[in-house]
């Protein structure tokens, strides 16, 4: 069941992104949509609205960019609980460290291993 929900929820989040790409003015660039998704996820998470989606759909909610926003917010909340105000700055990156590091490491190695074909 979780697989079906991951497919459905993850797919629907991507459909929203695709519709934004296709139906908005050229002034809305892929970069705007990317940042918009992270911010939306972060805000939903702050109001406690994203965690239920994660429980329902697992990776379907965590893998899209909104999931990254969710992780940042949860990291900030945990950081404040532990370290006070300083945690606002330390918490988000701490929570996202695995994802960010994996992106850099894999990006680096794949760039060395493969050559783009055009």
């Amino acid at each position: 069941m979780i697989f079906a929900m991951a497919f459905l929820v993850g797919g629907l989040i991507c459909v929203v992104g695709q519709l934004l790409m296709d139906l908005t003015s050229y002034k809305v660039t892929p970069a705007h949509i990317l940042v918009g998704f992270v911010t939306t996820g972060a805000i939903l998470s702050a109001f406690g609205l994203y965690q239920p989606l994660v429980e329902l759909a697992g990776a379907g909610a965590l893998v899209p960019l909104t999931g990254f926003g969710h992780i940042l917010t949860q990291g900030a909340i945990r950081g404040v609980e532990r370290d006070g105000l300083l945690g606002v700055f330390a918490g988000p990156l701490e929570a996202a460290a695995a994802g960010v590091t994996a992106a850099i490491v894999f990006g680096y190695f794949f760039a060395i291993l493969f050559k783009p074909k055009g």
Partner: protein
Amino acid sequence: MPAAKKQGQQTLVFSNPPVITASGTVVGTKEAAGPLGKTFDRVVDDPYHGEKSWERAERRFLEDAVQIALKKANLSSREIDFFLAGDLENQTEASALAARDLGIPYLGLYGACATIYEGIALGAVLIDGGFAERVVVAVSSHCCTAEKQFRYPTEQGVQRSLTQSWTVTGAGAVILAAQGSGPVVTHATIGKAIDMGQADPNNFGAAMAPAACDTIVRHLLDTGRGATDYDLVVTGDLGLIGRDLAEGLLQDHGFDLAERFTDCGVLIYDPQQQDTHAGGSGCACSAVVTGGYLLQQIQAGKLKRILGVGTGALLNADSPKQGETIPGIGHAVVIERR
């Protein structure tokens, strides 16, 4: 006193029309798979052309096109007075590197995708003015260097919008000479940079169509000719969207070119089969279609006189991000069978 060889506001009339004695065209696999695939001199299967980077590959494409043209005309680079070249890289580096290897006195040009026509016009001026006997005009573009310049690096895999064109990978060169056999360049109409406020860097066709139309109308008014004086009026790289816009704008001015009007960017790819969206673009687009298909049609007698209009979108990587709109340019050249 008006200039002796100028007619009307923007048109140059050559009293001893320079001859296009030879051309050289080199393309990549996508262009070779298109409807004009058989008209090109050389197809290079490897987009790197045996080099380490796209930029180095583009320089090789350009040199190859020049060497093919020189070989066809049975000339060595020492017998050429000037090398007029341009491309779409930063500071037109592909042309500069090709010029370094060729050793011909070099004038670097930038007219975006209109550069080959700008070069033919200026080369004809040098020859008709008595400053040169033979001139090589060459341009190049490479899909992967141009995407990096004007849109997103191809490696980033950003979705292409449907208004976007596909940059032609290749290079074209023509040799203009005071004497010899081949089609001649009789007129050139230098365009104005026209900006109707189009700002979408994914839709060059719409940015260039008004400039192409302005130059065509100006050419016809300056020369007193009508559309029926030409077998074909062919623009550089307006693509499907830009061609339709230009056709409409020309009709608004009272010129109905109908079947006589086409575009190199429309001719070079099959948009259904090749997923090229709005059509072909890039300096090489007009250069390889003109240097290949169009000159071959003229030599075969199927076309007697054409008006070629190179079109360019005059933006750089930063101007759209700073909210600037995109000026377009169109330079027209009359090529006639003789």
